[in-house]
């Protein structure tokens, strides 16, 4: 069960989500709630299943992916839902933007057309009304000279501007949830900050929920109220952002934090987590992180650890998370 401090009905409730490609598991049981209007971060190394979780939820994975579990959006079950239901949800109630904005926009269509396509699909606006709404959206995401930009092609815009266009397309359907999959990874650092600020501003303006997928804890910490740390297809720790930074309980989370440069206090040597993520076909029988874990003990290899509730909204999938010395060390 997710440990989120969700009160009332969640917007999205994911339960036991499993995905396998050609028999190789990529997700090994994801439980995650997103409340209306909240911002949740999903962190982890590449390949840990952050993106797959949401691609699976929206039915965007290729047919060879075997998917099991539940994904509820309000009262609607999305897994196995008919195509017409999913097409209404995608870009409508749940929008998604991606890592590489330049290649995520169709190179042969003008920007305006790519926005009005979403307007026609989800709000039934066409013609001149669609065009003026598209211009308003471009204004809203901070693209200068929006009227002329409608007729531009993606290659005539910079990466940051293309990501703004992607966000404008996402906003076209007035989504309740925006899933941003590494939205700033392909951009310059200064542009990254602008895009993150834009996402926060839009969330305030529209009240939509945000799921921010990133490999960068720093990016997530600035934007999100709650963070889920993923490792090898599972959520290994979930906590409110401040608590995760103050008292990380899972050794993997602490490894990630150790790799971040401290903003204040004395400079210290950054630590790296030794080893690599296990391949899906060579998963350890117990805790997937055990082979790299500095606190590994015998029982770690016995069984996949279940979630330990540490505080309200804080869970960690580690059998040693509740052990006093570790906690004390973590709280330092």
């Amino acid at each position, binding site marked *: 069960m997710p440990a989120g401090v969700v009160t009332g009905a969640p917007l999205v409730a994911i339960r036991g989500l499993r995905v396998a490609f050609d028999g190789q598991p990529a997700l090994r049981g994801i439980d995650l709630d997103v409340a209306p209007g909240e911002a949740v971060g999903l962190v982890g190394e590449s390949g840990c299943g952050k993106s797959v979780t949401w691609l699976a939820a*929206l039915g*965007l994975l290729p047919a060879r992916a075997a998917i099991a579990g539940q994904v509820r959006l309000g009262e609607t079950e999305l897994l196995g839902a008919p*195509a017409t239901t999913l*097409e*209404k*949800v*995608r*870009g*409508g109630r749940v*929008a*998604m933007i*991606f890592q*590489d904005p330049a*290649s*995520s*926009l*169709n*190179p*042969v*269509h003008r920007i305006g057309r790519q926005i009005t*396509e*979403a307007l026609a*699909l*989800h709000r039934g606006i066409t013609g001149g009304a669609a065009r003026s709404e598209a211009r308003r959206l471009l204004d809203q995401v901070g693209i200068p000279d929006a009227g002329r930009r409608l007729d531009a*092609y993606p*290659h*005539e815009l910079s990466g940051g501007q293309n990501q703004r266009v*992607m966000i404008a*397309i996402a906003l076209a*359907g007035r989504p309740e949830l925006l899933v941003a999959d590494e939205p700033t990874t392909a951009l310059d650092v200064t542009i990254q900050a602008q895009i993150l600020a834009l996402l926060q501003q839009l969330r305030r303006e529209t009240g939509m929920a945000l799921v921010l997928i990133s490999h960068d804890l720093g990016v997530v910490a600035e934007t999100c109220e709650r963070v889920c740390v993923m490792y090898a297809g599972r959520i290994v720790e979930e906590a409110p952002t401040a608590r995760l930074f103050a008292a990380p309980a899972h050794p993997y989370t602490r490894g990630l934090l150790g790799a971040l440069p401290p903003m204040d206090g004395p400079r210290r040597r950054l630590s790296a987590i030794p080893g690599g993520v296990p391949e899906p076909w060579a998963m350890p029988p117990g805790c997937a992180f055990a082979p790299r874990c500095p606190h590994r003990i015998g029982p770690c290899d016995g069984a996949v650890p279940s979630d330990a509730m540490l505080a309200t909204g804080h869970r960690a999938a580690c059998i040693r998370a509740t052990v006093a010395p570790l906690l004390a060390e973590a709280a330092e």
Partner: protein
Amino acid sequence: MLRFLLGRIGRAALTIAMVVTFAFVVLRLSGDPAQIIMGADAPPEAVDAFRTAWGLDQPVWVQYFHYFGAILSGDLGRSMRDGRDALVLVTERIPATLALTLPALLIKIGLGIPAGIYAALHRNSLADRIVMVVAVAGFTVPSFVLGLLLVLVFAVQLGWLPSGGQEGWRHAILPVITLGLGGAAVLARFTRSAMLEVLGQPYIRTASAKGVPWRAVVTRHALPNAAIPTVTIIGFMVGSLIAGAVVVESVFSWPGVGRLLVVAVANRDLAVVQCILLLVATTMVCANLVVDLLYGLLDPRLRSAPRRAGA
């Protein structure tokens, strides 16, 4: 745009000039036309007289300038066989060739492109595998083998269709199919791989994530992008409308430009061979020019590239 166009036309003219030159050199090096046309046992005086009559006794570079000057003034020379105007001789064969290559082009496009799209959309399905096996076979089996095979089955065994000649539309069926199937196979392969490439692009996922129904994702987002590489191949096929049937015309004894070329080469009928080569080079170059212009229409990235470079 005008500068782009003029540049392309200039390059096209240069290409044609090089083809003409190359053909001239190769043909002069490959044997004495006088000896071949007059026969091995012709008296030497007669051969010499033939040489003088056709200017073959001049130095090669003089012949070349004569020839090139004549081409520029629209005179492509006369056949050494019967003295008729080479251009007339060639152009009166063009309708017969187009009667094969145009319907074949329709088969190539009408069969190859849908098959390629279908195979890409149903990747690894039984239909995809069948399309690919047929396409690889069509790719690798030479047209004369396919032609002879069709003759064996439909003309010799079943007796449904004539095996050659040009007495009516029924005679065209087997050569058209032979030409069409091979080209359709090539086009199916290219279309399939172009579609697979495009379907794997992030903007296709974006379109799906936007809620665009799959059918519209394919028609609105995938096909316009996949058309760009496919147009290249179609352009090549259009360019070979005149000369693409040399082998098939020979197999089915169809009196088109291809047959004329084979006969003219065997006879060292220089003017006719050069005239055909010029025609082939011109159609190919024109088709390429059209493809280049189409690229600009299909792909906005190419349209603005020269503008940027010029700015």
